[in-house]
């Protein structure tokens, strides 16, 4: 039986929260590893000017884990579809999509959908491809590094929740995923997190950049070992309507470590 998916289903699925005031809507999308709580450092400032729509990707934070499927979420298109679903059920128009890291690419994919209402993109520490493709492109990592990352994640999950659940319940089966998320800030379900990791780190979305027509701000950290300034330059070069701003900061989470600068740049960009 095909069940009609309601607005409430989608808002619950992605644990959508709305706060702030203002006609302009900002959709804040967290990156790989954490959940929407990572925006709390900038949200107080932004919510004074804008309406903020925040959410958790399926498998992260307080999303509905039972909606997860390895098939749908093994590439970023599945996550972009969820973004479009949220935009549609809330009837959002002319929004600014602020995506951290991999969410920058998810936002870009969503913005290319004809029904999309994404007018502007703010990419916080984005990378269209983490793999090296030398000499043209320096993603920063070799495939072996990323395989090691998956192993490292696994080793950390051993101490976390649900590690053996997929085995007990049958590998990658739907039942394995019908559990409760631990509610931890960082994702702790091995099947979900590794699927997201593969979609994030083993894909190459460089070819999509020239197709992006949304007005785009690229916020790159001056020192980010995951997404270097060079990568910011690469995106800027290939996205026609883009601005690049290098922020003198350390690390890959500008919105957490340097929230004021990040919020100010977003405000300045939106105007």
């Amino acid at each position: 039986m095909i069940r009609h998916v309601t607005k409430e289903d989608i808002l619950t699925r992605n644990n959508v929260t709305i706060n702030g005031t203002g006609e302009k809507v900002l959709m804040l999308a967290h990156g790989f590893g954490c959940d929407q709580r990572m925006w709390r450092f900038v949200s107080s400032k932004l919510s004074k000017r804008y309406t903020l729509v925040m959410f958790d990707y399926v498998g992260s934070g307080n999303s509905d884990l039972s909606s997860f499927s390895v098939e749908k979420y093994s590439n970023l298109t599945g996550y972009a579809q969820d973004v479009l679903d949220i935009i549609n059920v809330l009837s959002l128009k002319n929004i600014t999509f602020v995506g951290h890291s991999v969410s920058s690419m998810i936002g870009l994919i969503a913005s290319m959908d004809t029904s999309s209402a994404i007018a502007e993109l703010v990419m916080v520490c984005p990378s269209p491809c983490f793999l090296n493709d030398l000499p043209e492109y320096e993603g920063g990592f070799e495939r072996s590094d990323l395989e090691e990352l998956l192993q490292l994640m696994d080793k950390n999950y051993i101490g976390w929740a649900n590690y053996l659940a997929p085995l007990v319940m049958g590998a990658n089966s739907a039942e394995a995923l019908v559990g409760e998320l631990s509610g931890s800030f960082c994702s702790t379900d091995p099947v979900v997190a590794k699927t997201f990791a593969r979609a994030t780190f083993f894909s190459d979305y460089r070819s999509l950049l020239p197709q992006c027509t949304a007005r785009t701000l690229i916020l790159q950290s001056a020192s980010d070992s995951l997404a270097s300034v060079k990568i910011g330059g690469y995106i800027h070069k290939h996205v026609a309507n883009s601005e690049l701003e290098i922020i003198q900061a350390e690390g890959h989470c500008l919105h957490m470590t340097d929230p004021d600068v990040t919020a100010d740049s977003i405000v300045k960009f939106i105007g």
Partner: protein
Amino acid sequence: MMSFTESETDQLACGILKIDKNRILLSGNRYALDLLLCETMDEITGLNIEEVVSLATRIFLNSYTFPMLVNEGKAEEVQLSFKSKTGEIVPVVANIQMNSDKTTDWTFMSCVNRNQLYNELLTARNTLQAQAQNLSQLNNQIHERQSDLQTFCHSLSHDFTGPLRRINQQIECAVEDLKENGVEAIDEFNLLEMAKNNTHTLMEITNGLVEYLVADVPTQLTDLVDLEEIVSTALEMLEQQGSMKPEVHRTSLPTIVGSRSQIQVLFKNLMENAIKYNKNYPVITISHTENVDNSEVIIAIKDNGIGMSNDYIDTVFTPFTRLHTIDQYAGSGLGLSIVKKMVMNHNGNIRVESTPGSGSTFFVSLPLRASSSMEKPK
């Protein structure tokens, strides 16, 4: 409050590192230096922590550990890989806390053995996952084959026995017509009678084959089965088939849980076997005991047939095993192999004791109650 002196921290059996808010290494103890294969602190002071870890750890730090530190102030029992001055990778487990000035304190210890264990665990899990996948595929194949088997049995039962029955009827009609027309051909009539007997044998074998194959089709083992009723029905069925009526001595048998249809076939075949080998006056004695923990019933079915020598005892449950010619004792040659399959389906057991010339006793043990392992998927 007493605090550690520098020389005391150098003697600690765990590593300590202090890192500033920009992730630059400020200080560390001897354990940390030894782990990074450095002589003095000068060699690492001023380096970014990301320069002394593996590339995978860099991603992990940025995706999990640093966000966790900013959000929750601490990250506990984190598996990371440090990279020594000479590029050697050392797995560590770390507890990290963030101070109010955003500096972080790292305590950690090398966990080479634990890492080895983790690697083995991951390999084992991957192997198990692959095996689980294989099993699931095999299971699907088995289900497909069982479905084919059911279709095959259906076809065997209808498409084979139908023509055989018609051949039988046609022979009977032909013989009747010939006799009505006064034809006298004793040898030919004998040949036709033999052909009729052969079609009867073929029908028996076909029915046996169907029963034998059907025993492999999964069935629910959840019926309440009154063995008293089963034995009575089996005897009635045999009488209707034209078997000799045996003298039966029986105890009051219990009710068990299983597949009614299979247990019915099982007892019918055992009774048939018990009657078949005494052509004069078959006597069957049925007795039973329950085991100590009252979990299974052992039923003994004793006959007064011809018995068999110990040399043949192991082969009686093998399909198409005949200890005698089909002319001496009719049958499909499958009856006892079907019995064995059905007993096994119920997680039971069967064995036989026999003395040539005085008869055989079959001991069938069957669980009294259903157990989860008895439940077969439909």
